[in-house]
């Protein structure tokens, strides 16, 4: 089983994970379309919090359109079925479903692992 392990204390807030995520999934240099986001908590307490889906599946349970399916442990949104009601966005325990005005369904991690390949401080770790 593959998984992403987060170490918030190692995150430096550089955003390389966000940029490569959007480039990978949208072919666009635009971290606002990433499925991983860093919350910057400055000036106090001076910490970073990485938000990315942990594949808990709660979104599938709350989706009224049955647009989210489990494929080998990864929850994937079917953009054809998604009505962008955003219930999953509000319900996500990780706050890791993201909205962008140009994208027709919430943006969510599909566990491709690209983010971990560019994380220099090792805050986003890829485990098989």
């Amino acid at each position, binding site marked *: 089983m593959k998984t992403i392990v987060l170490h918030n204390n190692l995150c*430096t*807030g*550089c*955003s*390389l994970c966000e*940029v*490569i995520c*959007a*480039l990978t999934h*949208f*072919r*666009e*240099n*635009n*971290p*606002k*379309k990433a499925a991983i986001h860093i*919350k*910057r908590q*400055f*000036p*106090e*307490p*001076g*910490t*970073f919090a990485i938000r990315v889906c942990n594949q808990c599946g709660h979104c599938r349970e709350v989706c009224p359109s049955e647009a989210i399916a489990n494929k080998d442990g990864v929850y994937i949104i079917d953009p054809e079925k998604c009505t962008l009601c955003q219930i999953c966005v509000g319900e996500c325990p990780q706050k890791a479903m993201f909205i*962008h*005005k*140009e994208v027709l369904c919430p943006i969510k991690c599909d566990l491709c692992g690209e983010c971990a*390949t*560019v994380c*220099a*401080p090792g805050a986003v770790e890829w485990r098989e």
Partner: protein
Amino acid sequence: MFGYGGNCLRVNLTKKTTEKTPLERDFAAQWIGGRGFIAKLLYDEIPAGANPLGPENKMVIATGPLSGTFWPSAAKIIFGTKSPLTGGYGDSNLGGRLMAELKYAGYDIIVLEGASTERLYLVIDDDRVELRDATSYWGKGALETERLLKLDLGEDYEIATIGPAGENLVRYANINHDFGRQAGRCGMGAVMGSKGLKAIAIRGTGGIPLYDPDGLIKITKNALKHITTHPYFERFRKYGTTDITDWCQQKGVFPTKNFAAGDFAKQVGLAPEPMRKNMVIADKACFGCPLNCGNYTFSKKYGTYLDGPEYETIGMLGSNCLVDSIEEVQYLNYLCDDLGMDTIAAGGTLSFAMECVERGLLKEEQLDGINLRFGNVEAMKEILGKIARREGIGRLMAEGSRAMAREIGGQSGRYAMQVKGLEFSAYECRGAPAMLLSFMTSDIGAHHARSWAIVQDMDMGRDSVTGRAELVKELQTLRSLMELFGVCRFPWLEVKLDFDTYVEAFNAATGYGYSREELFRISEKVWNLTRAFWLREKDGFGRNDDMPPERVYEPMPSGPTQGMKLTEEKVGLMLDEYYGLRGWDNNGIPTEKKFRELGLGAVYDNLKRLGKTV
């Protein structure tokens, strides 16, 4: 246009209008970005002889084609203007995240024109651009203003703001961003303040088009691999620029007591290791940076959070003022950041005033009764507040050390450590001639980043001046390109990422297909254009303006370079050689041939009409 946000935003503070115009293709291809855009626009648009703090001055804020892209440390935005501190060409860059946000909003450049009598701030939310009333933020600290604006507008806005020093036109006021990144030099904050603009808040949701995204991904992933496997990577990541502190002390280049010496007896109190252990609470990176040089600290004594202090501040507010505690330096740095002024110029101005006090050139009654002696931290705190408010002695000190020396007179000018009016960065140069030449010939005044040659100085024979001119010219040419691309130089400098990799990434982003040599030529063109700006703006500009203060001719009193000194003859030799390599005459004026060769014929003609050429 590949690599660009695609638009220029003009903001007229007098008329309170904003105008979005497409970035012109030829202009972008010829000037690339960042400092290139700035040099061109400032020369063309600011009327000759403009008052730097008048409505006729302009400020150009520019990103480069790599800013905000998938490239290591693609995190520079440059602010340029006619400097109120030096009276000539001025620019200063900052990291953080502002550059990326501006491009995601669809802009490469902001031009600020005119001046408002009302207090305003600028909000850019993609296409929606507004000037809003800033009354409730005016008077507040820069760090506090950023915090409040994020609360009021949303945490996804990136903010650049001035503090009280900028509002009160302190000539070395800076612009703050990302709770600890500053466009520190040349008085950018004073120009923003003179225009009535407190802050700029930006949110962008768009992407940056890339010519060859797959190519850039590949180049960048290889670059990241190089960076993260370099032997210096972990150490630089851990200490950032503070790592150089011990080295500077050992080499005798750590500025001490207003550059009287290069080694500080109590340097141990400013060393990186105890700072890391006792104060650093997080490693903070600018956009896209694997090197995260930002040391985010907390002071238990003062309760202050700060990005820093960085090396330059440790030197200028620490050893150079004989302050021997990193926690005190952190707090002085915090004061400078929140008041909104450059720690380098503030440190240099304070140490100059302290020396004047010690030599009896400044009397205690002139200092509002403050005992401004070297090492007196309480006095420094009080004076910094007075400078920012332009109160009492602060009125004079807000003008910078060169203007102070003119006012104080006597021999004081010897000890005002500045070139062109800009205070030295934190390197004592008597045993580092290339660094001195870098300060002398930098086109903004005595700043370190144009050509940081001090490491090479150690290997080239410290009391020899051979080869220095060539080295400085090479560094100035290459490093300028970093600020045209809109990226930080640290991956190249600290972990030796090959410059050709930058060229590849630049071409993958833009599709320009420029060679290294073509880029160097553009860099040289920019360097000559900023020289032309000085020529036009300062009567009689030339060799004299490149000369250092006379203190550099005194022998080193202590440390590893004890007894070493530079002579006027040696300094003159370096300068002659440098001018020769630049194709300038022996007064430092670019020749007609050089201007025309670089495609700056129109600039030459303009200068000739004004009677400003050879």
